Structure formats: structure tokens, C-alpha cells
């Protein structure tokens, strides 16, 4: 076991391999607030990568309805339960110390055990906690969508108050999931053959199809259950981060990195995908002009999914404003309250930057903002909040402009004679 630094936990942690970091890391932001659950992303991935025999049940991208839907069934409940039981056995508590924030501990310090540490503590004989979901659990990612929680209605069952922020009485939300291309992948730790590797150029985690022997240790120990077994080849497969697009080798890409398939198709415009620069010691090189760096590290608007698992996942979520906070804190860590507050009353830069989501298929490496006029003044979070019609400009890896959008969308009024035409 080696000691590595996990900035999401604000502390060093135990991992099977020494620290070795890629030059750039594949990362993305999913804005849960905007997802319409259309599954276009899910279909795009399937139509690109997993339409062949033996891959029928593989949804490298899936969108599940929380709190009850999950793929595979109850993956989150099961791994959380294992982690909880491990803490009880060890007489420890899985608590965060959110007061101890610092540059390399933005969410405070996690004092509990990760899935790797718990496996060592409990002497499980494995590298991480986990379980192997049988075939019947790879089903039903979406259910109880509109009846997720019960509310007290009137005689007819109709709500007397309706739904109101900050927390809706009846709630659910969509959780969009792909492989997190973790900094410390549990799948790679679990593989006894070292058949799983993290690419130096972009941190994408891949399973070497020539070395895999179908042991399914990665399926068992990826806490996010994003490694999947293919019965026709007796090997495991997983999200490949659409690496030909990320490399800029796709015929459409003009030689510059492109967003992945699931990101580029999203009609809800919830996704932003890119690469962030990583220093040799694993820290993110400060770059407030990179949209991902700005929103994840600068504003801390987007948070990792279940950071307590300890794999340092690289897909970041803007938490849903209307869901109960304890549930969200368990899911995204102690940064949830601040993230929701900032999302509800976004800074001038953030608001402009949010326009860049799904503005182009090309990965944006740098953005600039041209200031515009004040257009609106309202109250938000009990304070005055101003909206400006700023313009955001996105640049690709070669510094070429690839997107330009303003906060106020241009309005086109239909002329009278065409009022009824479709």
C-alpha cells in the first residue's frame, strides 16, 4: 500500500499504487438541475460503443432517477451500506470536518475510511470493498419518478401548498452517470493482472482487452459499478471516454479535442466536458480561464459524486436545488450547501459561463467574458442580485474561437401574418 494525496478528501489516503498522474485529466460537469431525463446521452453511447453481442445490458452512460432508481439496482445503497458497516465494525464514524478547508482541501477533511482503507481495516483479502451485481440487478434504472416521496395532501390528495424551494416535499432528480475516470481508480486497484490503466495524456481509464481474463474484480470493486462484464468475450469492458474524440482524431474534430458522444448530444444542455491540466504532484494547475477549473475549483459549484469512496472521481455535479440537503450531502459531500447557494445566485462570470454548456462539440480550453449592460435586478437568497447581459467566448485547444453566446438570448418576434403558421 502506498500513500497518495486525495484533494477531494483533504488528506493523504491509502492506495495500492504510488502516485503517478496524467498530464491532463478528462473531466466534466453535469448540471443536474437542467436534466430532462431524455436519455439521449444513454442512446448516443449505446449507438457508438455498446450495440454488439454480449453488450446488451451495458449502459456505459445511464441516467437514473433518484432516490429509488439505480443501475445496477441499489448500487449506491449497497456500497454505502458496506462502508457504513465497515465503520461500525471498526468503531469509527464516516465524518467530515468541513471547518478545515484549505487550498488542497476545498471541502474540508474526511475523517472516515474510503472503500480501499475499509478493505484493509477489515482484512477482506481484497483491495476495496464491493460486490458483484448478478444479471437480474442490471435493470430498472428509472422508477418512482413522479411518486418518489409521499406528501400530505388534502382530502383529494392534492397538495395544499404546492412545491416550494428550498426543499420540495415531493422530489426526485436525475443522476447522470458515466465512468468517473477516477484519479485513484478502484477498478485498477482491484485488477490482479494490472490490465486496467490510466492514460498519461488524458487520465482516461481503460481496460486492456488483450490482458483482461474476465475475473470481474473490477466489476466487483468499482464503487460506481461502471465496469461491466461481456459474456461473449469473457472480458470486462467500460466507458472509454470516447478517447478518439478526446484525442482529436475524430474526422469531424479538425485535430482538436472534442467532447464525448454522451456530452455532445445532450438536448438539456447540462454537460460540459474538457481537460484540465494536472501538475506532477496531482494538484490541478490553477487556470481560472478554463471553464472546468473555474466552476469546479474556483467557484466550487460542481462537486464529485460520493467523494468518500476515495477514488477521486472526475465527473462533477451541480447539485439539484430542490432535494433534501442530508441526502445531497451524503452524495456530494459537505460542499453542497455552498454550491446550491452560489448556483441560485450565480456570480457574473458563472452566469455567463453557464451559457457555454453544449454550445459546441469542441472542447473549450479557455473562455473570456465581454461585459454587457445590467438587464435585471431581483432578490435572491435574501439579497439583491443583478443580471448582466454579458457575452462568453469559448476557445479551442488551438486558441480559435469556437463559441460566442450572450446571457440574454436574442428574441425574434413572429410577424403578424405568420402568427398561426407552423
Amino acid at each position: 500500500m502506498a500513500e497518495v494525496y486525495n484533494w477531494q478528501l483533504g488528506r493523504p489516503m491509502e492506495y495500492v499504487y504510488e502516485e503517478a498522474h496524467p498530464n491532463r485529466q478528462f473531466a466534466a460537469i453535469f448540471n443536474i438541475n437542467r436534466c430532462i431525463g431524455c436519455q439521449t446521452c444513454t442512446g448516443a453511447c449505446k449507438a457508438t460503443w455498446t450495440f454488439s453481442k454480449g453488450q446488451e445490458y451495458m449502459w456505459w452512460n445511464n441516467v437514473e432517477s433518484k432516490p429509488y432508481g439505480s443501475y445496477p439496482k441499489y448500487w449506491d445503497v449497497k456500497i454505502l451500506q458496506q462502508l457504513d458497516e465497515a465503520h461500525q465494525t471498526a468503531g469509527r464514524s464516516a465524518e467530515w470536518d468541513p471547518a478545515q478547508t484549505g487550498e488542497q482541501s476545498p471541502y474540508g477533511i474526511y475523517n472516515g475510511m474510503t472503500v480501499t482503507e475499509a478493505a484493509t481495516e477489515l482484512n477482506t483479502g481484497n483491495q476495496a470493498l464491493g460486490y458483484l451485481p448478478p444479471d437480474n440487478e442490471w435493470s430498472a434504472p428509472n422508477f418512482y419518478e413522479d411518486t418518489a416521496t409521499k406528501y400530505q395532501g388534502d382530502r383529494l390528495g392534492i397538495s395544499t401548498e404546492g412545491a416550494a424551494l428550498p426543499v420540495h416535499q415531493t422530489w426526485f432528480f436525475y443522476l447522470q452517470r458515466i465512468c468517473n475516470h477516477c484519479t485513484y481508480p478502484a477498478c485498477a486497484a482491484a485488477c490482479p493482472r494490472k490490465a486496467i490503466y490510466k492514460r498519461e495524456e488524458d487520465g482516461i481509464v481503460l481496460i486492456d482487452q488483450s490482458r483482461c481474463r474476465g475475473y470481474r474484480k473490477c466489476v466487483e470493486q468499482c464503487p460506481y459499478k461502471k465496469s461491466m462484464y461481456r459474456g461473449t468475450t469473457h472480458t470486462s469492458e467500460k466507458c472509454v471516454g470516447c478517447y478518439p474524440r478526446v484525442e482529436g482524431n475524430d474526422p469531424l474534430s479538425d485535430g482538436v479535442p472534442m467532447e464525448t458522444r454522451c456530452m455532445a448530444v445532450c438536448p438539456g444542455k447540462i454537460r460540459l466536458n474538457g481537460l484540465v491540466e494536472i501538475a506532477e504532484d496531482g494538484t490541478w494547475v490553477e487556470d481560472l480561464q478554463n471553464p472546468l477549473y473555474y466552476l469546479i475549483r474556483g467557484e466550487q459549484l460542481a462537486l464529485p459524486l460520493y467523494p468518500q469512496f476515495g477514488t477521486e472521481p472526475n465527473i462533477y455535479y451541480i447539485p439539484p436545488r430542490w432535494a433534501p440537503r442530508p441526502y445531497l450531502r451524503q452524495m456530494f459531500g459537505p460542499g453542497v450547501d455552498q454550491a446550491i447557494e452560489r448556483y441560485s445566485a450565480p456570480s457574473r462570470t458563472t452566469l455567463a459561463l453557464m451559457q457555454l454548456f453544449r454550445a459546441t462539440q469542441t472542447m473549450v480550453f479557455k473562455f473570456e467574458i465581454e461585459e454587457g449592460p445590467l438587464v435585471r435586478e431581483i432578490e435572491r437568497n435574501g439579497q439583491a442580485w443583478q443580471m448582466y447581459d454579458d457575452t462568453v467566448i469559448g476557445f479551442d485547444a488551438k486558441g480559435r474561437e469556437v463559441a460566442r453566446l450572450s446571457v440574454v438570448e436574442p428574441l425574434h418576434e413572429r410577424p403578424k401574418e405568420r402568427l398561426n403558421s407552423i
Partner: protein
Amino acid sequence: MITRSRLFLLTLLALAGMLTFFKIPLASSQGVTIAAAQVAGALPLDDVASAVWEESTAVSIPLSAQIVARPMFPDANVKAVDVRALYNDEQIAFLVTWEDETMDDTAVRVQDFADAVAIQFPLVEGQPFFCMGQQGGNVNIWHWKADWQAGLATRQDVDDVYPDMYVDGYTFADTEAGAIAPVSSYEDINYVPAMAADNLFASASYASPVEDLIAGSFGSLTSQPAEMQNVLGHGEFTDGKWRVIFTRDLQSPAAEDAQFENNQVYQLAFAAWDGANEERNGQKSTSQWISLQLGEPAAASGATGAAAPDGTDGSGGQSSANTLEGLPYIFVPMLLVFGAIVGVAAGIWVFSRLPDPKK
């Protein structure tokens, strides 16, 4: 008060506890020799019940769970294998039998693991680390798999385990065939990436149920190229028992293969997996090194005979199996032995200093 007899009892209890904890079998396989019987005619390549096997004496070899490297699994199921060996002028054959409650011969569904058994031969003089060899001490492994055996004629496919599945057609495969299009019908094998990467597990059909591999430490197991796969096999499951035959030519053209000659003693070790217990990779039962005797070894050439061909030191040839670290693992058993010696010495010293009640 602690007397010599009480301490003796306590020591015995502690020792028994340790043996149970580390799953160390009391019947050690060390020193066991399998005498291969020389036969004049053909070897029974696929007849597990052939009377010819009786010409060789079955040797029972105790196995214990692999607990040196993660992943480990102290509750591995197979406790022993019985082995017979035969050879003629050209080939050598082993019959390995063991008890198993269930026949697990498919690995198509995510939760299915197949039963398996393996024989391991050192490719260097002497005995490298008994589990998967070590750096500079490669081993040749013959690995029989129940699902490869079952899939010899036609590979098992998803439509075999899910007969009611429906698919319009698989793009790039035989689209007319719908759900029953075999993976071998793919025109563009890039959609079967493991096959495109020449992974034997994904080959359109298996030439033998036995895979021929080399290893030089944990995690380094590497399949030999398809054209070097020269171990034949046949396995049958009856009455709660697997009977598996391994056969190969005495001499192999492959550099990283065990070689056999008459009148020599070789080392070999066994491992077995119970699929129903989700055993796979390091989650297995293994034996210590066992001796294999062909004919009447000359007194001098005896004990050190290794299956290494001349000029092979295990570090040359296909070095891919050798590039991963494994050396620290050999210190684990060494440490255990060292600890035991120190413990016994300390025990004797304490013992000698305690009052003897008889005095």
C-alpha cells in the same frame, strides 16, 4: 502458576490455532512424488476411465487457499486433487481428479464462474516461488477451464443462457441471424475488441480446453501466442467429481514451455478453482511443489532436475511476464518460516527456565 506441562499445552493450542488460522494443512505435500508410468502404446487422451491410467499410482495432493497476495480467499473449496501421470515415447499425460459439488461450466452471465484446474512447472532449476513463480523464475502453466471444455464444439453464447432474448439483428454481425448470430460472424471485429486484440478468451472457437501460459510473479500471467498453444485436454464431470486429462508432447518447440525427458525428476504444482464459490484468479487452492519422476533417474541428475530447456534461465524469451514486481511476495513465506524458527527457539528457552513440577 505456569508449569512446564501447562506451557506445553498452551503452546500446542496456540500452534493449532495458528495452523487453522493460516489454513496450513497438517499433511504436507512436501516430499511427495508422482511416479509417471511409462506405457508402450497410445496415451488415453480423452478417456478418463481408461484402464491404462491404473498403471500409474494415484497420488493425493493436499491444496490450501492462496493467502499470500490480494485478492485472497481463505475459504477456497478444493482441498485436494488426485493425480496420475503416464508417458510414452512422445507424450506425457496427467489425470487430475477432485471432488466438487456442482458442475460449473459456463462463464457467460456476470455471476457465473467456471471450475478450473492448473498444473505449473518451473522454467528454471530448482523451485521458484510456488505461486506463479517469481522474477527471474518463470513458470509454465497449463490451465484447464470447464467452460472452454463445454464450448469446444460451439462456444457458449448469450443466447444459450438467455434463450428467450430477442434482438432485431446485430450490426456488423450476421444481421439475418438475429439473436443467435455468433460472435464469430462479426465482419468487423473491432466491435468485439477482445477478439481484435487476440485475447484467447475471445477467440471464435477454442482449439483446446487447456490454455498454455507463462508467469513470473503475481499479476504477470501471460497466455502464449495462439500458435504456441500445444497442450491438449479433456475433462468430464460425473458423480460429484471432475476428471481432467492434460496431454502434451514431451518436447515442445516453445522456449517458455516445460520439457520432459526420460529418467529425470521434475517439479510441478497444482491449483484448482470452484466456480460456484466465485473462485477465480488468486482466489484458489494451491499445492506446494511436488516431484514428478519419469523412469529411473540417475542418482546425480535427480533432485535438481527442472523443466527448463537448456539455455533458458527464465529471464529471457518472452519477458512480458517478467516485467511486474513480484519479488516481495517471496519474502512472506520466508518471514513466516523465520518467525516460526525464532518462536520455537524462544519457546525452548522459556521452557528450559520454568520449574519442572516433578522436581
